[in-house]
């Protein structure tokens, strides 16, 4: 096969910092995921979901009309099994992350992890209520222990259903119940997918896919939601902070530590260690002025939301960060860490440090994390990075960074909309009902080396806010908008449509809200459920004028997220290509079929304009179904500070009469 043409940097990314680094990669002939994507074609049979390799008689490639596998499995069965297994892997990843946090809380409660404590007792009590743990008058640590154990039991309990399902609107719970897709516990549904998709077992596409709905619900309303809640209990529930994004946050004269991966457990400790005067002294002793932390992927989002740690970049920037030559240590934990970073780091001084017992990478330095002596390990890591600072060569830090205000937990959103006394989602529901806000889009998910980096994220978000759609984000999509400058309140004044601008100006929020990491999509579920119960927008998530999307998806977790969003009633559009595009019937089941069953539907579409068109059409249809007024931006935009500015600039004597308005009349 002839070598494919390599994309020019500006075709490969829309992000200026990344373009700069890609130019550097071209010059230095460094291999990155961008260049590998250009030279390695995707397997056409696998990418369409037509390859079955679940047994030793295959792999069977079902490329001809009506062809079946050796066992007779049809294309429908094969595509559905492949899809279900992606859901299983995604749900397992999120949920296992949640489980570890529960163990951390348990260790903290039992006194084995002295560096951890309960930072948000209010949230702990709230969890206790949902999990049926007695709250009244009990010491916090005792409560924490029981909540940890109750959380752990959600993963493998013997009877009943996941308790958090009752956080969904009543109507939604009934739908799940009637379809018998309420997950019984987190692990069991994942195991059942693996069982059902074994050779010669469940061989009805719709039936297989029903189980993926169930396992995905166990992720969204189970593993992920527990992960979010437990993280908030241990590290604090996010509120707004000021921070910065993009590779420009790295410092030429400071020790730069990148934390990359998905968990807050160790990274929170490293962040604390990096602020320790002892550590700063140590860094200075190595010739650095201080220590800078930067995050990549969802570890970045976790520490950004709670501590304001700057974002160095999203998924496709992990290798580009190393190319700056300024990263002294890249500390990784779990998920979305490209093996390529190790090979690339070999050409620089950067130390790749793996820390999770679940994720070693050949060639990397492994410093295994143990929550029982967390701070000690964190300091060892910081020291190692500082030691490495002395080995730095030439650095190339792109001069790109933008400010942002993250920290929009659902708790804070409630607060933002009314304060301690009147907090609720009423103003949001009102704004949607009136038409100031046309609808809500959750733009989430990954980057994908096969599509132009950040391109779709930037395009769709620009269009949505221009059209008065409030955008909420998590994961690498959120980082894209942060870099684009859409996460400051000023951005609302500049880029939002007139109605959305009025609301943003009234509340002081950006038009695009950063809600956290990819497990924090559970926060979005919580907000949607609360919107449905607040009143005025129907009584179920499927009634709300909202769309979910992951235009640059690549991970199996994204497929699990998409699936639980659909099962929760949302219309979801995934970009890039469909993993089941080879099978029309499966494509029909996940779109029309699921819409009939659960009210949400899943579509794949790689054209930004089309994604926007479909989304707005869906939002407008939901508005019409709710009997809401047609979207009309010409009605809005009158409020705000614009007029007072003129007035305050006048000298005082004139101001007094001018305050009464035009005197001409």
């Amino acid at each position, binding site marked *: 096969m002839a070598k494919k043409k390599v994309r020019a940097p500006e075709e490969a990314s829309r992000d200026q910092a990344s373009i700069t680094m890609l130019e550097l990669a071209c010059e230095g002939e460094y291999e990155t995921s961008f260049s590998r994507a250009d030279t390695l074609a995707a397997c056409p049979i696998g990418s369409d979901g037509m390859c079955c390799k679940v047994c030793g008689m295959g792999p069977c490639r079902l490329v001809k009309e009506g062809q079946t596998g050796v066992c007779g499995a049809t294309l429908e069965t094969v595509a559905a099994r492949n899809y279900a297994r992606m859901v299983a892997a995604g749900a397992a990843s999120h949920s296992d992350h949640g489980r570890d946090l529960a163990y951390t809380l348990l260790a903290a409660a039992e006194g084995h992890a002295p560096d951890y404590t309960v930072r948000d007792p209010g949230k702990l009590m709230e969890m206790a209520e949902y999990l049926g743990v007695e709250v009244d008058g009990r010491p916090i640590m005792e409560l924490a222990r029981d909540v940890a154990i109750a959380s752990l039991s959600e993963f493998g309990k013997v009877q009943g259903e996941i308790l958090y399902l009752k956080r969904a609107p009543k109507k939604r719970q009934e739908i799940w119940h009637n379809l018998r897709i309420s997950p019984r516990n987190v692990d069991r549904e994942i195991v059942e997918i693996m069982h059902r998709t074994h050779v010669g077992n469940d061989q009805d596409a719709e039936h297989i896919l029903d189980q993926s709905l169930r396992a995905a619900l166990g992720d969204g309303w189970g593993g992920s939601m527990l992960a979010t809640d437990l993280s908030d209990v241990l590290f604090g529930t996010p509120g707004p902070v000021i921070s910065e994004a993009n590779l420009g946050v790295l410092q030429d004269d400071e020790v730069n530590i990148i934390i990359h991966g998905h968990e807050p457990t160790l990274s929170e400790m490293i962040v604390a260690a990096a602020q320790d005067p002892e550590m700063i002294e140590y860094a200075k002793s190595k010739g650095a002025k201080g220590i800078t932390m930067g995050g990549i992927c969802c570890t970045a989002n976790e520490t950004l939301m709670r501590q304001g740690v700057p974002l160095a970049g999203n998924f496709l920037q992990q290798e580009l960060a190393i190319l700056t030559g300024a990263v002294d240590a890249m500390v990784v934990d779990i998920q979305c860490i490209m093996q390529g970073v190790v090979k690339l780091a070999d050409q620089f001084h950067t130390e790749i440090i793996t820390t999770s017992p679940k994720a070693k990478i050949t060639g990397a330095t492994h410093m295994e994390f143990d929550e029982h002596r967390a701070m000690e390990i964190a300091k060892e890591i910081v020291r190692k990075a500082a030691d490495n600072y002395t080995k730095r060569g030439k650095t190339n830090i792109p001069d790109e960074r933008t400010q942002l205000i993250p920290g929009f937990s659902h708790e804070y959103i409630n607060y*933002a909309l*009314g304060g301690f006394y009147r907090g609720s989602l009423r103003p949001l529901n009102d704004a949607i009902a009136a038409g*100031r806000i046309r609808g809500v889009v959750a733009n989430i998910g990954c980057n994908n080396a096969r599509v132009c980096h950040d391109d779709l994220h930037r395009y769709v978000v620009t269009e949505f806010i221009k059209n008065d759609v409030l955008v909420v984000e998590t994961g690498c999509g959120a980082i894209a908008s942060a870099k684009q400058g859409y996460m400051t309140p000023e951005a609302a004044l500049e880029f939002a449509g007139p109605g959305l601008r009025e609301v943003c100006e009234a*509340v002081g*929020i950006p038009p695009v809200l950063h809600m956290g990491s990819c497990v924090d999509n559970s926060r979005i579920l919580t907000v949607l459920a609360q919107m449905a119960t607040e009143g005025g927008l129907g009584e179920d998530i499927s009634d709300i004028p909202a769309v979910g999307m992951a235009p640059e998806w690549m991970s199996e977790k994204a497929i699990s997220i998409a699936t639980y969003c659909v099962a929760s009633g949302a219309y979801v559009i995934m970009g890039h290509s469909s993993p089941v595009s080879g099978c029309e019937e499966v494509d029909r089941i996940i779109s029309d079929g699921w819409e009939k069953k659960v009210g949400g539907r899943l579509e794949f579409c790689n054209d930004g304009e089309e994604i926007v068109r479909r989304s707005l059409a869906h939002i407008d249809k939901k508005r019409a179904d709710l009997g809401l007024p047609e979207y009309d931006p010409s009605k809005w935009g009158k*409020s705000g500070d614009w007029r*007072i500015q003129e007035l305050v600039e006048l000298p005082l004597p004139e101001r007094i009469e001018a305050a009464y308005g035009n005197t001409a*009349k």
Partner: protein
Amino acid sequence: MSRYIATRAIRGANAIVAEADALLTKAIAEKGADTPVAFPNTAYYLPVILGMLGHEASKLGDLEPVIEHAKRMLHPMPDVNVWTPYLGETLDCGMATLLAEEVIEGVRFVYGEEPQPYPGLALAGSTSFTSPDNGGAPSTDGHLNGPIDDIQLRSWGIQLVDGRMPGFAAIVGAAHSNQAAVAIVRELQKRNILTFLVGNVNGRSMIDQLHEEGVEMGYDTYIVPFGQDTISAIYPLGFATRSALTFGGKKGGQWRDILLYNKFRVFAFVLALGEVDDLKYATAAGAISYGFPVIADTVIPEILPTGITRYEHVISMPWNEIEGETEEEKAVKLVQKAIEVRGVKIQITEVPIPVPYGSAFEGEVVRRADMRVEFGGKNSRAYEYLRMVDLDEVEDGKIELIGPDFDEIEEGGSIDMGIFVEVAGRKMEKDFEPVLERQIHYFINGASGIQHIGQRDIAWIRISKSAAEKGFSLKHFGDILYARFHGDFGSIVDKVQVKVFTEPELYTEWLEKAREAYEERNVRIGTMTDESVEDFYSCTLCQSFAPDHVCIVSPERLGLCGAYNWLDCKASFQINPTGPNQPIKKGQKLDPEKGYFTGINEYAVQASHGSVSEVAMYAIMENPMTACGCFECIMMVIPETNGFMIVSREDTSMTPAGMTFSTLAGMAGGGLQTPGVMGHGKFFILSPKFIRADGGLKRVVWMSSILKEQMAEQLQEAAEREGDPDLIGKIADETICTDVEGLLKHLTEKSHPALSMPPLM
């Protein structure tokens, strides 16, 4: 919020909390922590503190934790660049401000500085403030009111809650001029809205303005001067808090419930007159948490998105930009706007007309001999037309008679008249116009001695001699409609104004416009077909006296009473989603000719409580739709003629069926399904679906002449559509014959198509 307001309010809050803190520290040092602190004559301690914190503060020392709480609610001002969100933060600062202000007033009482002295002022009203200095007697010695005592709270509070008093206006500052000050309070008084006065602008307050103009203030005049500083604004908010505690059954500490009670039940608003400083912004932020919006007469940032308050949060109406020649005219507009923004519902409990009013008079008939004057009927014409317009195009309560009243008309005479109603409302929709317009019939009929028949431009109204003697005039139609639209349709109608035309030119001009609107409405429904919609509507308005009957209304078949077509039902459903008109999924079409639908059949079984199992929408000979008793027409098979006759409700003559309308009604009504007999609306005759299964319009052999006259043009069109342009001439009426023999003879002479159609029986 806006960042400007947030900045100012947060700055004001930080300052006032610090001031309260210092004042309290000083007071405790000077007077001791055990010194009693209280507002006089109230059981609610310091009411805002009690309501929000559940804290019964009775000694100076009890106020310390209040200040601590207030401090925790404070936030820093938003940054100039890259600010963090500020709405929740500002609202909390507003609440901190209120707590601090109440602490300050408490301390001032300890020092005897409240109520504030005001030499020369005598408050009107027997239950006014009774301070220890005052010897318990009504205030005559020159001080302002201070907090409202529990006695007055109870006397006013219940009126506020049950709607007799629509709300209260907390006026902060001073009006643009003394004249404006007087005009504003007069506007508020007119509407029974309480006026609470606080604050000043550069040392001058509205209290000074009213005092100078000799306006009497006090409980008796509904104008309460609380104090001349912004801090006194805590008294109106304490009054609001106590309303929730007294009448809402809320307990101290149920802050959220108390605030929401105020949002939904206490229709108060803040009028910020004159310059707004930091403390006013901070206090206003507190008022907003109660759901009370702020309307300013100066340029300030507007906050229009809704949520904390029911409608807009902050409105700026710069005084010089208000349209109006005089200060009075501007005051009217300002108060109107405030009422609109707060959603104050003006409730008229009594219809203010000189004759008795009530639904008991609805069926009253005014005979010619008793009649003073009539509009419509044989010798004149009357119409009624209702349309919706934008909120700012209606001056609520404005009623005009344009042209002469009927005094000059001779007894028993007649005159052309048009009633033109304009309504506005945030939830009003164009589709509701006909539904509301139709109510005019019921509303006007409620007046004793007034008879109303018909609708649109065939309305016919009579005023009796006795009503005229009691002073009933044309303007009273406006009073009736104003009161009833507010009372019955307050959920969609915020403002109503009425014009009555007798002046010929305007009368004609608006008749034309009304007819255009009627036509537009007709066309809208006229172009719809049963196939074009998913849902039909049920109508169970009459189930109270025909419990097993249910009307099914489709685009091509209106309700049998003629009052509701499909669009009206749709609108009615929107106005009242649990009301008598509910959408019914049409379901699968079983028989397109007879009009059987799965959804309709299922619904009929359920709604008729099992007595009807199937309904044919387009047939009379099998499973016809049932009727209550209020049908416009009755259709019945005349077997000898192989056709049907239709008798109109207005027709009292004998019919070829050998029975008059009233005798036939017994057979057709009561929810009974009798093949061959059916009650229906007269416009159904024109529908392409009209007894389609049985041959349609061509089967009609006899029809009351009044129908032929009223619908001459439309009937002609329908005849042409059915392919027999001369059909109407072939149909007999009561002027031709009232028996079967005569009918047969007529039909044969005219060679009526029914004679040659397939046999019905």
